[in-house]
């Protein structure tokens, strides 16, 4: 915060802060009378609220943009911890963040095994197969307006359906191991990807296509030099949507049967045994994996579609 020191120091408390702290003090006194346990909660909440309001009032910069959500997230964690400890919430209802962290670090081998089973074998392989199949299909039907007109409405319709319901069927067909999870993921990502790719392939303007024609470019040359690069923003949009779908598909498919490892399996069995700290540990891993997966695709997008207005700085 040193580079922000000058505006911070000038109005250290900031306009309205006196009023804010006055109100907070009143609330705290009332809370003290009602239930002493509320006191630290409201104090933490009030202080971080004030802190965030102050930082948000500063001119926007990279540091403030990062600091505010981080403070907010930390506040939630601290409040969570305080609530669980002050009110003695039983661990079978809501374990404290420190308990979850302890479990997370103690169970690294199990979590890693589940991660490999669900994410690498199930979600990732299904994601690659499904997206590749959808991409190839989109390029193939691109030559036939008839197929496009037929497949697009059907694809859009199917993309809105609860496809996750096919999980029990696919588990029956492909067995309990990761193949069935990959199959669920393939089915889930196929249509969103198809619809996005088809939309992307029609994203070029007639002027650009005319230019290719004046160059006497063949269909394939036009495809590779003009239309596929122009389609990339749409393709990556589809790829990004599918990252979340892939993980959801792989996890939920395990609720319908799996070998004795995997994130979905662990979540459903630990829920049954009321081992909620383990469930939260799995959810943490799933959240991290999901964000990292999305982030990786977003980085690839930035590298491939650097020319697109949304990526320029």
């Amino acid at each position, binding site marked *: 915060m040193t580079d922000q020191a000058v505006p911070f120091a000038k109005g250290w408390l900031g306009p309205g802060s006196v009023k804010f702290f006055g109100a907070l003090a009143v609330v705290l006194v009332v809370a003290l009378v009602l239930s002493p346990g509320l006191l630290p909660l409201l104090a933490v909440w009030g202080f971080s609220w004030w802190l965030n309001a102050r930082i*948000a009032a500063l001119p926007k910069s990279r540091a403030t943009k990062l600091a*505010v*959500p981080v403070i907010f997230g930390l506040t939630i964690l601290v409040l969570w911890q305080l609530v669980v400890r002050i009110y003695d919430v039983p661990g079978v209802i809501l374990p404290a963040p420190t308990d979850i962290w302890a479990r997370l670090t103690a169970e690294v081998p199990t979590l890693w095994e589940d991660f490999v089973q669900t994410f690498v074998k199930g979600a990732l392989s299904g994601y690659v197969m499904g997206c590749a199949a959808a991409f190839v299909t989109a390029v193939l039907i691109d030559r036939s307006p008839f197929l496009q007109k037929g497949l697009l409405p059907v694809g859009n319709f199917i993309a809105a359906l*609860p496809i996750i319901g096919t999980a029990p069927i696919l588990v029956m067909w492909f067995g309990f191991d990761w193949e069935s999870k990959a199959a669920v993921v393939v089915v889930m990502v196929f249509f969103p990807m198809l619809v996005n790719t088809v939309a992307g392939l029609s994203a070029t303007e007639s002027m650009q296509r005319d230019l290719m024609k004046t160059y006497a470019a063949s269909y394939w040359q036009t495809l590779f030099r003009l239309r596929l690069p122009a389609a990339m923003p749409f393709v990556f949009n589809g790829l990004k949507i599918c990252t979340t779908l892939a993980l959801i598909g792989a996890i939920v498919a395990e*609720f319908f049967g799996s070998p004795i490892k995997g994130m979905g399996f662990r979540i459903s069995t630990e829920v049954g045994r009321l081992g909620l700290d383990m469930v939260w540990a799995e959810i943490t891993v799933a959240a991290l994996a*999901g964000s990292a997966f999305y982030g990786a695709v977003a980085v690839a997008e930035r590298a491939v579609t650097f020319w697109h207005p949304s990526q320029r700085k």
Partner: protein
Amino acid sequence: MNIPLAAPGAGAGRSGRVGLWLRGVADKALPVLAVVAAIFVIWYAAAVWMNSQWTLDQAARAGQEVTFSEIVADTLTQDRPKLPAPHQVAVELYDTVIDKEITSRRSLVFHAWITLSATLLGFGFGTVLGILLAVGIVHNRAMDMSVMPWAIASQTIPILAIAPMIIVVLNSVGVQGLVPKAIISAYLSFFPVVVGMVSGLRSPQGMQMDLLRTYNASTAEVFWKLRLPASMPYLFASLKVGIAASLVGAIVGELPTGAVRGLGARLLSGSYYGQTVQIWSALIMAAVCAALLVGIVGAVQKIVLKRMGMSA
């Protein structure tokens, strides 16, 4: 495909308007019908192919030879086929939707209603909360900077994985039935609404905001007269995403407790007992519900935007 309007036979024998309408329908519906027909053909072929193993095994056990036509006939009428043929699913659907009393546990309408009521309740909660949060975000800079990154990040994580835990935890504190499923539906529809509504409420351009400022409009007036109307297209777009997600949430919410009612329960019990026909009919029912819900939101969108003069 694109015959010019004045082409020979463009509206042959009919008034121009009817001919044009017919051609529009044919142009749009024909390819879709062709694709749907192709799906059915593939479905039947796959049913014969996937179920034939069982037929051949049975025949081999009985020491009989079967001809191809016998195989086809058998594969389309098995009790527990690997892949039921479309007409088997249709018969099951007819049995469980039309024939049974809708209050009976064997009626699919009954199960669909259980799931739908949780979906709608949760969708209502999620939408209202999402809109309220979006209003707060737009009007409070600190809230915007604190919450918005998390709301966006939440879209990248598989929040559906929390569903079993919510159900079981609420069960253990004595909350049962509709509410836990509705909560899952609510949080699944919540984030799309927040993200869509924030961009909707921010969609008025500088020029329009400036105009209201020259009118000396208060924040509330700006909200009611400019921001809220301008956000409607965004709201409906996210409502469509949200209601589909709500339905998925309600279905998945029925899995972990081994619930006996609802479409998710039908899927689960079907997969336990190998009742493939039951799974498929539940799946079709879920698809119909999703199409219906999204269709209703779409229809409301059309009417509202038309009344507001915003339909393109």
